[in-house]
């Protein structure tokens, strides 16, 4: 057994050295990357539903003018705690394409819970034309699609500061301390008081950014809460099985001399 232990140490010691080496470049960026507290990041954390709903309000009121959320359907909003009637009402407020009419002409009409979220532009080209050549990315997976995840997106939304005097800005771009290269094609979308919340929550920029990022984190990983809940049960069961199996193993091996 001590042999095995030294062997394992031999394997894992290098692995530890490696892990610490790997974390060096991560630390170098740390000053720029915000360290927000997120309701969903803890091991058993769930989504703060009120925040996610406020975030949905911001998405629909602000971001959806430029960004699509193609992978979502209105019915999915039950995931942030909306009731079926509320979802119906929300969906009915959007006009979406509904295939063709009897004459074969494209038809539009109010969305139903089964409809996909309405996209602001017909295609990428139209989106670029409306945004000075920059393409607003689909936000369905944006939190997963960037190093730093929720903190990064939060950093973008709160990262608009005056450009340093020596910094040469290109026309039509905006200074953002989070964005790689610091010149982003998105005008600052949120300020203090951009929206008005019905639940009386303050509307500082930080609060708004926090809420919309909570919503987008849910949109990117809607299975998170169910996943963790099942995970806890599965792992507990497996730990129990490991104990049981190990006990049986001890019993079976008890008559072997080695």
């Amino acid at each position, binding site marked *: 057994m001590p042999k095995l232990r030294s062997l394992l140490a*031999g394997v894992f010691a*290098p692995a530890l050295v490696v892990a610490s080496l790997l974390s060096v470049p991560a630390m170098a960026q740390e000053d720029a990357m915000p360290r927000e507290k997120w309701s969903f990041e803890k091991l058993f954390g769930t989504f703060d539903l009120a925040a996610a709903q406020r975030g949905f309000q911001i998405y629909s009121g602000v971001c959806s003018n430029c960004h699509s959320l193609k992978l979502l359907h209105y019915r999915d909003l039950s995931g942030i705690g909306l009731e079926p009637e509320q979802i119906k009402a929300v969906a009915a407020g959007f006009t979406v394409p509904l295939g063709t009419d009897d004459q074969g002409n494209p038809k539009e009409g109010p969305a139903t819970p089964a409809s996909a979220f309405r996209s602001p532009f017909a295609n990428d080209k139209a989106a670029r034309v409306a945004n000075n050549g920059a393409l607003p990315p689909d936000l369905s*997976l944006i939190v997963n699609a*960037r190093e730093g995840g929720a903190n990064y997106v939060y950093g973008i939304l709160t990262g608009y500061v005056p450009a340093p005097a020596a910094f040469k800005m290109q026309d039509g771009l905006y200074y953002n301390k989070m964005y790689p290269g610091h010149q982003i094609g998105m005008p600052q979308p949120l300020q203090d008081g951009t929206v008005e919340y019905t639940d009386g929550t303050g509307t500082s920029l930080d609060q708004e950014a926090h809420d919309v990022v909570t919503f987008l984190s849910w949109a990117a990983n809607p299975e998170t809460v169910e*996943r963790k809940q*099942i995970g806890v049960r*599965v792992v507990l069961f497996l730990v129990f099985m490991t104990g049981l*199996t190990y006990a049986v193993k001890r019993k079976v091996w008890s008559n*072997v001399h*080695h």
Partner: protein
Amino acid sequence: MAGLTKSEFANPVINWIDTRLPIFTMMQKEYGVFPTPKNFNYFWNFGALAMVNLVIMIVTGIFLAMNYQPNTELAFDSVQHIMRDVNYGWLIRYVHQNGASMFFIVTYIHIFRGLYYGSYKAPRELLWMLGVVILLLMMATAFMGYVLPWGQMSYWGATVITNLFSAFPVVGPKIVTLLWGGFSVDNPTLNRFFALHYLMPFVLVGVIFLHVAALHITGSNNPLGIDVKTPQDTLPFHPYYTIKDSVGICVFLIVLSALVFFAPNYLGDPNNFIPANPLVTPADIVPEWYFLPYYAILRSVPNKLLGVCMMFGSLMVLFVLPWLDTSRVRSARFRPVYRPLIFVWVLAVILLGICGAHKPEGVWVILSRVCTVYYYLHFLVILPILGKLERPLPLPESISHPVLGGRGGGPLPGGALAKLMEKA
């Protein structure tokens, strides 16, 4: 060898079948009473774990294939459809995704076990070589599988890796066109990769069958690296190793579950959440973690053809390892010089993995070159010479009498050593 089997099973149905098709007798012989060295440590779990892992991959893969669309227009969204709309689709996908990483973790430990305890040496050379074939097939399968979700890294990884073949003179460009099914990575590429990704695991099943068949001819090695001499050295596989493997499987499942349920994207690349776009190249194209050491070797060589050869060579050298290592002592326990050196080699591989994750600039180039040279040095120079120079510790008489011949541990006289190494 025609003729009915004399079956010893009492159950009349089983007996009837077994008489005509002796699968029950075979299972009993190969997995029931099969004599197995009694001194295995937990490193001997990893072959069985790899087998379990392969089954998990095949089962989840088939369910994924039921909802996946191998078409460049649809692939990315169909994967998200699985994640969001298919019942427990996220579970199936995350198990398949993280299962691939676990497969490599398990197999790399399995290979390390072989290196440490000298399981590649006579008479297990062919068994080892089949293992290397398995590793190559696994890599091809994983590479093609990673292309299927059609994210940015899928696309650009496929482009970079398939382009490597163009380095070969004359046939290179033809091979690349064949892989692509056209003039760039595109829909035909995705289609054939899907077909092959579905096929290869079943080829793997076949090669693993041969691997295990060969194992059951030579019998297993063991931590002492000496041959089984008497029945006292062994235990029947069942129940001793079935239960011990079960413990390992439970622990394996805990690790897999921890990844799947609590950190499913930890080992993934954020870029693969962006749909493939041939017009936008990611800042740095990196493969999955289990390919990073080879990728570092590739990028450490300035000449493309040489780099490709060095990369493939780093795996090919494993085929001839049984003849490069000239020491007749199997287990590193009795090889005082080889024992630390194998850890240095592991360290070099890990460092190569880190280099592979960084852009080949500055210190990373130097480090990856040093490690690449050491990787080859270990196999091509150190092992052949070491076998001649090293004075092994005295080997135990047998597995059941692990008492050493004399105290103090001077090496045995050459003749006695050779006698011990003979097959019992």
